[in-house]
């Protein structure tokens, strides 16, 4: 096969891995801190893409759109945490099932509001022509998506490792009781982490829009990928989410390109291996 194919597929994989990181880093943090898999996370991603679509066709610039749509989804995440999950404090099983119920409601509302047709999001004008280096064409937009997710990863790393908020979140992930005991406002942390996670998922949705389109079912396509990322990388760990995202990005993308019939089955294998040999995931801080 020619070089161009491999270059393009590799780029697609890393760009998709970047998107997955935007999705799964928040998922992983929420899981690490609150011990619940937020099953509405795929719906947040889809909602971000649809918000982005609506803002873009009203003529808003791409980057403000991404930010605004992300914050909109973030606020919905905060509402979910404050008004529903808070009522079920201590009943983690109930919380998980409620997030699933919410994801069905969001998906159905999206279907009403934006119909069942796929909605393409337009990439920024300047990024549409491919980048030509040494005779090869590179899709510029995907490179930029990769760059943004790397910046986001760096930002999250600094937030987690270098700030007071990050230290409090890490303390909560490692030992909730102790964190409460030394006076960390854990319940406010829950809201903060939900805001952060949902916003990241929303921005990821807008960034993913030009690549994936916004369509009904985007949520249930993305959610299992986020789950597998977290199973692979380990819950509550930023590094785990980062490495896991790119592994899944590569496997999924090359799976689709090379064995389209079995793209999902190929994902199954790394998951099995990790579960059998490293049940905490590659870099897990908490038992999933």
């Amino acid at each position, binding site marked *: 096969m020619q070089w161009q194919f491999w270059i393009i597929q590799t780029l697609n994989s890393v760009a998709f891995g970047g998107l997955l990181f935007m999705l799964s880093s928040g998922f992983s943090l929420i899981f690490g801190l609150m*011990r*619940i*898999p937020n*099953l509405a996370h795929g719906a947040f991603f889809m909602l971000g893409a649809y918000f982005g679509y609506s803002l873009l066709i009203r003529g808003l610039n791409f980057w403000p759109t991404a930010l605004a749509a992300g914050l909109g989804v973030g606020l919905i995440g905060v509402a979910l945490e404050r008004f*529903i999950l808070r*009522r*079920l404090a201590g*009943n*983690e*099983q*109930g919380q*998980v*099932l*409620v997030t*699933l*119920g*919410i*994801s*069905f*409601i969001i*998906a*159905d*509302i999206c*279907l*009403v509001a934006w119909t069942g047709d796929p909605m393409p999001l337009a990439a920024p004008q300047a990024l549409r022509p491919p980048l030509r280096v040494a005779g090869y064409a590179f899709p510029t937009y995907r490179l930029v998506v990769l760059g943004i997710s790397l910046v986001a990863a760096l930002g999250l790393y600094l937030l987690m490792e270098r700030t007071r908020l990050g230290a409090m979140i890490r303390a909560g992930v490692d030992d909730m009781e102790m964190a409460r005991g030394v006076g960390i406002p854990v319940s406010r942390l829950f809201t903060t982490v939900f805001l952060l996670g949902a916003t990241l998922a929303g921005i990821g949705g807008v960034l993913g829009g030009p690549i994936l389109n916004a369509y009904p079912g985007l949520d*249930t396509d993305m*959610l*299992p990928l986020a*789950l*597998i990322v*977290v*199973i692979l990388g380990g*819950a509550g760990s930023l590094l785990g989410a980062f490495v896991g995202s790119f592994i899944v990005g590569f496997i999924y993308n090359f799976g689709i390109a090379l064995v*389209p*019939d*079995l*793209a*999902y*089955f190929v*994902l*199954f294998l790394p*998951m*099995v291996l990790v*579960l*059998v040999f490293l*049940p905490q995931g590659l870099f897990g801080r908490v*038992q*999933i």
Partner: protein
Amino acid sequence: MSRSGVIALAICTAVLLVLPWIIGNEFYVNMASQVLIYALFALSINMMLGYGGMVSLGHAGYLGIAGYACILATTAGYDQLTAAIFAVALSTAAAALFGVLSLRAPGLGFIMITLALGQIVWGIAYRANELTGGDNGIRHPARPMPFGIDIRDAPSFYYFTLVVFAIALFCIWRFSRSPFGASLMGTRDQPRRMRMLGHNVWLVRFLTFVMAGFWGSVAGVLYVYYNLFLSPHAISLQQSAEILLMAILGGASTLTGPIVGAAIITLVKNVVSSYVERWNTLLGVIFVVVIVFMPYGLVPGCKQLWARLSSRKNRKVAGATASEPAQ
């Protein structure tokens, strides 16, 4: 079983036996068969959920594996019985594999892994066009003729489903009352103590997982016989969630709860779908409302209400004779 229990069971059996005559209309007889099939799904997931405290979101995967295996084996030329046995065996073997994987994670990780596994089955069904027909789904050639009896029309299919359902219900009832069932409930409530007492907690959970997978597969084959068609839509996450909701809505800690839940959800779904298209929103709302306001489900909730009402009546009687109230 208590005497009132025996009477209730006798009444239910009688009603179920004459049901096709009572309702008459073919459409509603079919709906009754559908309720029985979903009740079997809900009962099977409840073996894990109610007695073992394991929340699975991948149960529709067994419907997928058993259903597709049954259709593919039948179209490949095997007779119906062989195809059905093959389908259930394959799907139960898959349940054993899924069980080994899911039980690596205790608690909520279990939900995540079962969900991911269920979605992988869905993804394969959706993508493997040559085998499964992809999005368009595939047809099952015809309903079987068990012992030469024709079950093509609605009432006879209903009786066929009823027989399978009764056998399954008996087995699951025996399961819940057996020493094994007791040890399963022990692992749900006090896993550490059970381990201390020498029980192999993992093995108890694993065997339950496989048994639940087995009955889920049987229900899957019934589903295919009923619809004579299977597509990835039938094995989506939503299907798994509906099955789970049936068990929770009715009351996961009881045997009758999942059956009541399956009846309510199936009827509501059929009624609502004929008026509006917003079944998914309603499903989500039922989910949230049930979990926030009725975490123990309808059957235990009604029992509690009944107990409270009757104790109030008793208290009135007691209050008339003694000056001190009971509480």
